[in-house]
């Protein structure tokens, strides 16, 4: 088996502005995707990512690590994979991310925690 990561991209705000019916279609599509994956392999982890305005990008420039705000969408680089990590804060995540190969651009994105629906 090989492991694959799927990153989802959509227009900012489209979820917020979607009607309830459209949201049900989204849920149904995600559900169908997950059923297909479950039938043919297994899901290791998945989560919605917070918006690109919460991203931090690292690059090795001239022997030091440069840290900047935002994603690396304007470059030719494509997201190639993800590590799902639990770390105390962004500084720790930056220190960890800086250890990855220097040819990588590493995007650190906070994961949205969805509270379980309480008793109705």
């Amino acid at each position, binding site marked *: 088996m090989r492991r694959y990561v799927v990153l989802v991209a959509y227009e900012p705000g489209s979820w917020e502005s979607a009607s309830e019916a459209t949201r049900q279609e989204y849920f149904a599509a995600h559900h169908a995707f997950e059923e297909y994956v479950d039938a043919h392999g297994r899901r290791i982890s998945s989560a919605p990512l*917070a918006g690109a*305005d*919460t*991203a*931090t990008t690292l690059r090795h420039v001239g022997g*030091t690590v440069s*840290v*900047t*705000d*935002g994603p690396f969408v304007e470059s030719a680089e494509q997201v190639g994979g993800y590590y799902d990590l639990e770390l*105390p*804060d*962004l*500084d720790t*995540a*930056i*220190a960890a991310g800086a250890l990855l190969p220097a040819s990588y651009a590493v995007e*650190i994105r*906070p994961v949205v925690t969805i509270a379980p629906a309480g008793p109705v």
Partner: protein
Amino acid sequence: MTEPAEIVLETVVREEWGRLTSLLLAQYRRLDLVEDALADAVAAALRRWPADGAPDRPAAWLLTAARRRVIDRLRAESMAQRKAPLLVTDAEHRQEGQAAMADPGGLVEDDLLRLVLMCTHPALAPESASALALRLVLGVSTHDIARLFLVSEPTAAARITRAKKKIVAAGIPFAVPAADVVPLRLESVAQTAYLAFTAGYTPGSGPDLVRADLAGEAIRLVRVVVGLCPDAPAPVALLALTLLQHSRRDARVGDDGRLVLLADQDRRRWRRDEIDQALALLDSPVLAGPLSPLAASYVVQARIAAEHATAATPGRTRWDRIVEHYDLLLTLFPSPSARLARAVAVAEASGPEAGLAALAAVEIPGSHRVAAVRAELLSRRGDTLGASAAYEEAIAACRNDTERAHLVERLAELTGADPA
């Protein structure tokens, strides 16, 4: 004779805002509540102090009032069963925060450093970090931040809000990082402060040439950092640089509101005390050792400013030394504007012909400055036709009213026409 309550309040807000913010953050970890609570406390003080008299310990009064506001909000939220995301701190910090409440001292300074490092974190967009640091560390109003950066007040407010949201969502900690990371982070602090400082001197498209009072706030931020970390080279070098540049603020604009060039400035209006302080900083042992490129570039720029500051008259400026400084600066950070400034220095040191040669390959898209310098040098060489064309080019590209007026006047002098 006691001071009027309004003056006491203004002083305590100016001097203690950052410490109060950092104490409240250490205790409550709620970035979204703390600033509003403190602003409310100041508003309450403004109502009550003039009537009741200023309290003996004004900072403690504000802290207590702000704590009550935070607690009220937290109670209201817990009634509504809401949970807001908290700033990342650790238990130890929170205990320190509690201890500092009782006995302000060194621990408070640690919290203030945490606040400065959080606001200027490199993961924040520079203009947001700059606005946030001015707001949270110095208590500068959103109105003044907007004026400084030449943006609308809603835009300035949005930058601050965006930065706060990212801090909480991305988990930027309210903490002092590992020792090996601190020097780099202090460079981010310096860059953030310098961005705010240069915003005050960057001519925009309007008539407001110098927002010098607000540039002074950026220097105050640098002073806070130098106070917290006196052995860090980048902030010390930046303090020297900004003091030297700022020392000329009164002479930069004439009584008619127009730009006065360095050579024409009344040097008696330069702030000698600030120049002396900057020169002392440049001689300090902190800057004697090996420096990072950023710190070294601040030192070199400060030495250029110091050459001007110490020349008794424009004619006695050591332009040869200034050219050498620019040569060094270009090896550290090559930039078109540094090459332009070097060409000006070369022209002063070796004549317009050499200056034009140094200027030949300099291009700054969208800026009128290269054309303006070329016009001046062509004019000095006696090429009236070429100079007129270059002035026309510069005037067409210039977006600042005051600077354009100056260029129009120069062109009129050259062609003998009436500037009106």
